[in-house]
């Protein structure tokens, strides 16, 4: 890959930065307080082509490439991790699935709507008390003629209650284990599909998490995505491509927080000098700057692989393995630098701290990232 951004990518980055300042900043405090999906901001993102940023032009996307999209996610995250997460769960998770495995008809209807921002997407992968497909509350899909009947429960569904369409992973063959998992495109308005409750969480408030109940939801056979039994592999790939974008959220939040800490530290006088003149503080800033930079490079590199159509699962697993820790440790240090003020809700650091912890969840995925990485090491 080229280690410098093209003029076009820089321009997209600048545009996203201006957009975030203009349209996202005003919503941040309210969103964090209420946890309610910021519909107006999402509509604005649609208007500015963010929702279909890397999706194919044929279906209404801007086709700017995954790296350009990643740059946008990073810029949004500097201002609001929640808004960045909404975009990622729509674009990297739901829309990616339709774009990657959808039939032409599925793409024409759903992908076009998602790329243009007429339909917001979400992925329903996890079940209460279990990894996908393994629990008592799993969603089971039974085929009857030309329709599938979906019954069961999904939890931690990001964009839940706000999305217009869900990619739902359901068991079509209970005997086949992981190979019995299949994906369906389900209209959020489908009869029998209910938002059971919204789930409160530490941060990223505004990117709603919901528990979804499927009570005999009828999905036409044409709503099956990929093929029967292809679900587990699809889920793994979605989590990989989403992980790259989640890494960008971590980078954006940590970068913004570090800049705040540097600014605060230069003005905070203790023992007659700015605290940034103390090596103890300098070391923390240097460590986080280096960690953020390395994570950013890993993220850009993985995005470049996605753009080139090359394999990226291992690189994505590496990001999932360490990006979360780097984000958390950066924010632990940022608040340490800002002290009691950083711990108070008056400073952005306390929100960044809560947001960064959830930006990329290591073990919420179908499997341990270590496994993917070590398989490559031992190959």
């Amino acid at each position, binding site marked *: 890959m080229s280690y410098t951004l093209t*003029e*076009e990518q820089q*321009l*997209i980055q*600048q*545009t996203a930065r*201006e*957009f975030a300042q*203009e349209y996202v900043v005003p919503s941040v405090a309210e969103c964090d307080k209420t946890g309610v999906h910021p519909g107006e901001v999402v509509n604005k993102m649609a*208007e*500015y*082509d*963010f929702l279909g*940023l890397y999706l194919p032009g044929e279906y209404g996307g*801007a*086709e*700017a490439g995954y790296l*350009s999209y990643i740059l*946008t996610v990073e810029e949004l995250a500097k201002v609001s991790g929640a808004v960045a997460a909404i975009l990622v769960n729509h674009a990297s998770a739901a829309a990616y699935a339709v774009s990657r495995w959808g039939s032409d008809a599925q793409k024409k209807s759903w992908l076009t709507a998602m790329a243009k921002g007429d339909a917001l997407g979400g992925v329903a992968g996890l079940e209460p008390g279990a990894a996908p497909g393994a629990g008592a509350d799993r969603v089971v899909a039974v085929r009857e003629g030309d329709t599938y009947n979906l019954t069961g429960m999904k939890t931690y569904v990001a964009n839940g209650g706000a999305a217009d369409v869900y990619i739902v992973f359901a068991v079509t063959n209970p005997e086949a284990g992981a190979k019995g998992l299949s994906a369906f495109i389900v209209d959020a308005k489908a009869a029998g599909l209910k938002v059971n409750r919204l789930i409160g969480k530490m941060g990223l408030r505004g990117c709603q998490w919901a528990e979804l109940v499927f009570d005999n939801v009828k999905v036409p056979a044409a709503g099956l995505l990929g093929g029967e039994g292809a679900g587990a592999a699809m889920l793994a790939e979605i989590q990989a491509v989403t992980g790259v974008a989640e890494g960008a959220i971590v980078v954006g939040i940590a970068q913004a927080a570090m800049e705040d800490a540097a600014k605060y530290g230069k003005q905070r006088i203790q023992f007659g000098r700015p605290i940034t003149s103390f090596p103890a503080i300098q070391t923390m800033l240097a460590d986080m700057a280096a960690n953020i930079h390395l994570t950013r490079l890993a993220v850009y590199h993985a995005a470049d692989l996605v753009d080139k159509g090359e394999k990226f699962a291992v690189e994505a697993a590496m990001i999932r393995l360490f990006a979360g820790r780097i984000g958390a440790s950066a924010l632990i240090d940022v608040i340490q630098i800002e002290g009691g003020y950083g711990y108070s809700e008056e400073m952005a650091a306390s929100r960044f701290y809560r947001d960064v912890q959830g930006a990329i969840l290591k073990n919420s995925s179908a499997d341990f990232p270590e496994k993917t990485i070590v398989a490559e090491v031992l190959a």
Partner: protein
Amino acid sequence: MSKILVCYKWVLDEQDIRVNAADASLDSSRAKYKISDYDKNAIEEAVLLQEGQGATVDAVTFGGDAVKQSLKDLLSRGPDKVFYIADPSADKADGYVTAGVIAAAARKTGPYDLIICGEGSADSYNQQVAPRLAANLGLPSITYVQSLKLEGGRVVATRKLGDCTEVVTVEGPAVVSVVPEINKPRIPSLKQVLAAAKKPAEEIKIADLGLSPKQLTAKTVSLTVKGFVMNRKNILFKEPAQADNVAKLVAALAKEGVC
């Protein structure tokens, strides 16, 4: 359909320029370029006219080699085509030279029904180029424009003056310079950013403009550039009664000639 020319300057972002505490010299090593702020208003106004009544919009800029980086940014904001004069001599150019260069370029690429400039640039803010450009081209000049209409061949502009406004109507073509109140420049959408790559950008060589060395020699010479440093008086009023503090503050301000 009318044809509009909008002029812009590619300047260093003043937010990134640091003042060295020791000698007040400027450090622009970390500064990036941007389209000068008021010129963004000029661009937006041209694009609004283009959308409102149909017009083709050309843009023109004169600057050092760095102006080549500005082309996509400019085109993503709506103009149909951009002409650029990239020449190292721009570093020493003043309003006299710049207006001469742009006038010569406009003669080549025009004629235009309307030429729009920002009131002044974000770096030097001399407010010279627009009126000089008008004089060069023999056109009427309207400055401080806060609202603008094209009515047939006529240009109707409202000027923002000290404590009043003035509505001016002239027969076009004309050169106007706009103030920030005129509009709120849009952020381009990503599709506009991407489409910018497909729009034409044409270089004009300064040598092809037929300007004499004298016309390319600045009339003003910059000797030094220094940062502005605000000196605090560090006077504290610590009387027990607040009224005494107020009285002392007023007296101190009066002594400084502030009130």
